[in-house]
């Protein structure tokens, strides 16, 4: 059903010089401590990472709860910040598609889609036979997902021992990791343009609309980069 050799190949991408385990661990430890602060118990904290598994959305949820926002408002705010997962899925899953594979694998494993797993998969899918790529993805997903859940629990338990400076230190690791991976991905003109324009437009549009910033910045910067790439033959 699942090719175990390829599955483990995906799973062990957790170690090595491109390991997402360190940044994932760092940010979910910080999240666990934050959730404890927001009044979650340990089961709720673990459930949040188990069922949501998308850090920016979980941060929005915790902060909205502290501000006393309604559940509907939380839903909309999270949907907007996590909408990035839609274009990310569409730019990854066609690469994993194979007609011999059952659809349920795709429908279930889309839950593993997060920035770290996506970057790893985009970086290494070419080394895997097209037929088994979805199993490779499931391996990456199980590895990163379980790391996130375990680290949330660890962060919750360690919350009393973590001071503010340590938490700030943990919180910077994730953006640094993402940024380095993105620079590694800037292999042609349109990709470089997409990354640079997005980085600049994101904070600028945020000044005008905090909720819609990601969506608009992504659409505008991505479309410009695409058109520019088309015109200049990449």
């Amino acid at each position, binding site marked *: 059903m699942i090719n175990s050799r390829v599955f483990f190949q995906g799973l062990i991408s957790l170690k090595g010089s491109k390991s997402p385990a360190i940044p994932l661990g760092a940010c979910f430890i910080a999240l666990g401590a934050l959730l404890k602060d927001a*009044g979650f118990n340990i089961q709720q904290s673990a459930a949040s990472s188990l069922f949501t598994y998308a850090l920016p959305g979980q941060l929005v949820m915790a902060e909205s709860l502290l501000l006393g926002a309604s559940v509907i408002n939380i839903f909309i705010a999270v949907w907007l910040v996590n909408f990035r997962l*839609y274009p990310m*899925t569409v730019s990854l899953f066609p690469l994993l598609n194979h007609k011999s594979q059952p659809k349920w694998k795709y429908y279930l494993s889309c839950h593993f889609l997060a920035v770290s797993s996506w970057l790893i998969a985009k970086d290494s899918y070419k080394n895997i036979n097209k037929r088994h790529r979805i199993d490779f993805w499931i391996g990456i997903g199980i590895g990163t997902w379980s790391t996130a859940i375990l680290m949330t629990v660890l962060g919750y338990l360690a919350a009393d021992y973590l001071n503010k400076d340590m938490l700030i230190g943990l*919180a910077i690791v994730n953006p640094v990791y993402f940024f*380095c991976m993105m620079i*590694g991905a800037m292999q042609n003109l349109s990709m470089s343009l997409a990354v640079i*324009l997005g980085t600049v437009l994101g904070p600028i549009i945020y000044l005008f609309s905090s909720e819609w910033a990601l969506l608009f910045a992504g659409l505008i910067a991505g479309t410009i980069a695409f058109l520019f790439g088309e015109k200049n033959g990449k």
Partner: protein
Amino acid sequence: MENSQIIILAIIATSLATFISRFMGALTSEKVSVKSKIFQWFNCVAYSTLAALLGRMIIFPAGVLAGSELIIRLVVMIACVALFVLTKKNLVIPTVFSAIFLSFLINF
């Protein structure tokens, strides 16, 4: 409503709001060919959206990171990217260094 019920509802709302985007992506992917232009466009938009999120996380951070100064975050980011390039794209060294360096700078 009791506090713990609100938390459970919030977890459900957050998880649903997140899964919708992933699942819609999986459905759309069935109709998108890797060689098509629309795939290229989605690829650019995905990288741009991610970059926008990253830019926002550094300039206007949420959570504990907001407790540090912007200039310090920028210095750490630039130093780590330089380290990433110098170590021939090793990711472990710059990520570990970033936490230590930032903790050092905010207490300096």
